């Protein structure tokens, strides 16, 4: 009788054991599809430098934007870019990059555009710091104006602070602009 139940059960159940959709789970540390957060990227180029197969490169439109390019067909998913990114802009998600029909090109290319911002002091276009870094650097409101500064003006502001610390009468020559 038990055998009959098994046979009936097998006849009623679909023949396959597992649908393609419910596959064994991917481990959470799996290095799969790569994502890039333009808001956190400072375009320092570390990812392009550490990438062994040279899957990452940067292009720039001077004064407008810097673009981060990634070609998945050249990636070996080693995770060095994620490990070395100082602002954690790159993340390798656990989900699997899907397969692609060749109609969409010879593979997946990602592009992420980082828009340059004009410096609030000298007007030079620069890549803004990520918001989290800005909050850490300028937590108190004292130097709030430095948020929009370009790296050169930030350096100038820091040295100006140093000079006022040495000469407390505030003899800093205003308008000491950096050369560019």
């Amino acid at each position, binding site marked *: 009788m038990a055998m009959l139940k098994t046979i009936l059960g097998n006849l009623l159940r679909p023949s396959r054991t597992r649908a393609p959709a419910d596959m064994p789970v991917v481990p959470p540390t799996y290095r799969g599809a790569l994502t890039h957060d333009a808001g956190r990227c400072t375009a320092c180029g570390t990812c392009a430098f550490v990438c062994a197969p040279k899957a990452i490169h940067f292009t720039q439109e001077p004064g407008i934007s810097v673009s981060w390019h990634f070609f998945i067909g050249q990636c070996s998913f080693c995770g060095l870019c994620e490990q070395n990114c100082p602002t954690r802009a790159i993340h390798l998600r656990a989900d*699997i990059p899907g397969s692609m*029909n060749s109609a969409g090109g010879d593979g997946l290319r990602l592009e992420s555009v980082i828009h340059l911002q004009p410096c609030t002091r000298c007007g030079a276009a620069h890549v803004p710091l990520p918001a989290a870094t800005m909050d850490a650097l300028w937590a108190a409101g004292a130097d709030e104006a430095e948020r929009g500064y370009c790296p050169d003006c930030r350096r100038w502001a820091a040295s100006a602070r140093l000079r006022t610390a040495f000469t407390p009468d505030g003899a800093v020559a205003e308008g000491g602009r950096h050369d560019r």
Partner: protein
Amino acid sequence: MNLIERVVAISRRRSPWICRLNAGSCNGCDIEITPLLSPRYDAEQLGIELHGTPKHADIVLISGTLTLRSRQAILDIYDQVPNPKAVVALGSCPSSGNVFAGSPLVLSCSLDSVVPVDVWVPGCPPRPQAILDGIARAAKLLEDGATKSQLAKSRLAGSQPESRCGRLS
């Protein structure tokens, strides 16, 4: 499309036979094919069967970096597969050469310039379910008559684009 053609098209999707071609791979992708045939991933639920000879295959899985030595072998084996056929490229190597690009005797070019590729499965190596998904896509393309070889054949007989990459001359 009459009934018989429809049945043939459906059976192409329901029972794709694959053959594996290592074009100079590190064997990572080939090792990922092995669990695909095991009960854990169970490729045979989709009717996929691995065959040793390209003459019985519908879908060719090509893995690995293209080398100067393997280029002619790829072309020969591709010609032996009966029409209609589909090509699935496994991993990063066929599309660019990956870390081996620029090495001596490695063709640093896409497999697409040697044989027409229908599905690219990214990963280094791709997971077995990604390979399974790629084969299922290729089988669907075979059913629809949308693989590159089928489209080239229906467009005009035997005018495949001349493969340029790595030609010795």
